[in-house]
């Protein structure tokens, strides 16, 4: 079935950009650890995960540009939009904080994305299914790696457990946005292109509770959800992030190499 026929083009582009922006922004945040990680293995691991995310983002931007049909390349979409045009969820743009905060955010994101990609690999949209089939395996590595760290920190020293618990507290208001639905997600899931995010909650919770029980960590009490990224309303961190991300293209417009 031709996915382009099942939903209008604008909806499909918005859906793809949300997904791509999540991956680009989180990949950018993770890359900030390069050279600053607490040990050499982590200094390799975090940029490696960042590469996976940015690679997934590239494939999605490329496809979004094709669907949009206005001749925008993946670089145009990644680097030449205004803050309000980015549609990533708020969790991924949060500053890295400490190592526990970074790892827990990555673990939660991976746990969500794994369920998402697994379902999207049978998408009616063949291109998305191809991207998903690869991403689901890569995401499985991220879950394992970050999950091991969550357990190590939670079951580690008093200090590491305290930091992980604090991270869970700070991050929990941003979780709901992952599962939030609107007319875009409704149209996309009705067309069989991607799952309804709300339906992924049980799978997410299974993955998380397995790791949290080993980490002696409780899921934080649900807090008032922080949302807005999907419609381009971001936290104050986003402007600073984009300033750095877009620096080259803003300073040397059209630069290629």
């Amino acid at each position: 079935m031709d996915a382009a026929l099942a939903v209008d083009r604008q909806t499909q582009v918005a859906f793809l950009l949300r997904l791509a922006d999540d991956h680009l922004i989180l990949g950018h945040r993770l890359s900030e650890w390069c050279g600053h990680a607490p040990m050499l293995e982590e200094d390799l691991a975090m940029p490696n995960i960042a590469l996976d995310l940015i690679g997934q983002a590239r494939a999605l931007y490329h496809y979004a540009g094709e669907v949009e049909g206005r001749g925008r390349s993946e670089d145009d979409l990644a680097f030449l939009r205004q803050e309000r045009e980015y549609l990533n969820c708020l969790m991924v743009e949060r500053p890295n904080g400490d190592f526990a905060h970074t790892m827990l955010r990555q673990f939660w994101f991976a746990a969500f994305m794994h369920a998402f990609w697994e379902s999207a690999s049978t998408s009616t949209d063949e291109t998305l299914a191809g991207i998903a089939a690869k991403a689901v395996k890569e995401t499985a590595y991220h879950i394992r790696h970050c999950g091991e760290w969550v357990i190590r920190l939670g079951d580690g020293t008093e200090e590491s457990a305290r930091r992980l618990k604090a991270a869970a507290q700070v991050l929990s208001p941003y979780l709901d946005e992952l599962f939030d639905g609107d007319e875009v997600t409704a149209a996309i899931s009705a067309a069989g292109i991607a799952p309804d995010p709300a339906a992924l909650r049980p799978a997410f919770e299974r993955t998380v509770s397995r790791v949290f029980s080993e980490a002696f960590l409780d899921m934080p009490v649900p807090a008032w959800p922080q949302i807005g990224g999907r419609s381009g309303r971001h936290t104050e961190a986003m402007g600073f992030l984009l300033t750095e991300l877009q620096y080259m293209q803003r300073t040397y417009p059209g630069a290629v190499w």
Partner: protein
Amino acid sequence: MSATRGRPGGDSTPLWPAGHLPHKGGDQPVAWLSPITNIEERAVRERLLISPLVGEMAGRPEGGDVGQDVTTQDDRRRRRAFAAASSVPDPEIPCVTVADLGILRSVEIVDGVAVARVTPTYSGCPAVLAIELAVEASLLDAGFDARIERVMSPAWTTDWITAEGREKLREYGIAPPSKASSSIRSLFGQAQVDCPRCGSAETERLSEFGSTACKALYRCTACREPFDYFKCI
């Protein structure tokens, strides 16, 4: 093409006397067709006429000579284009070619243009563009107008690495991926990674993420050597 390779009927002496079976690695000359077939194209066969393995064996059951194909001019051009494209080495693991890795999906001649379909490996592999450029350059070198198409679906998996490619990886010191990555469970089951140097199964994972996006770092507890493991996806 190495200068030491004799070409039957060509300008150098065959590497072994008639009646003796060639040994491993010694029978490449057979990759060339008989001097009276397609000599104008000097087309390389995609498969060796006889198996490259050592020993006495029947040709057909071993995937040897399957008989002469009736080839057309287009077919020969396509084969020549495929041979040119498939000889491109991976930029990060030069011991294997893009064909060994299963990255090169097909080469077709469309309206006189050689169209190579290439599939990216890991999403984050920075070599994707380099590979596409190298395949294009190789086709141009071989005298074709070339175009590269990137294929996203179906997604590449390490299962597509050929048996020959896996053997080359092992010889290079990289443990090839364990087979059957079709389910997530098998990705994380008790996959046994054998040391590519001493063959021992007594190995341990040092780091999930290694020198490139596609590799993890392992250590052999028998010979104590660290080594790369080509991750299964």
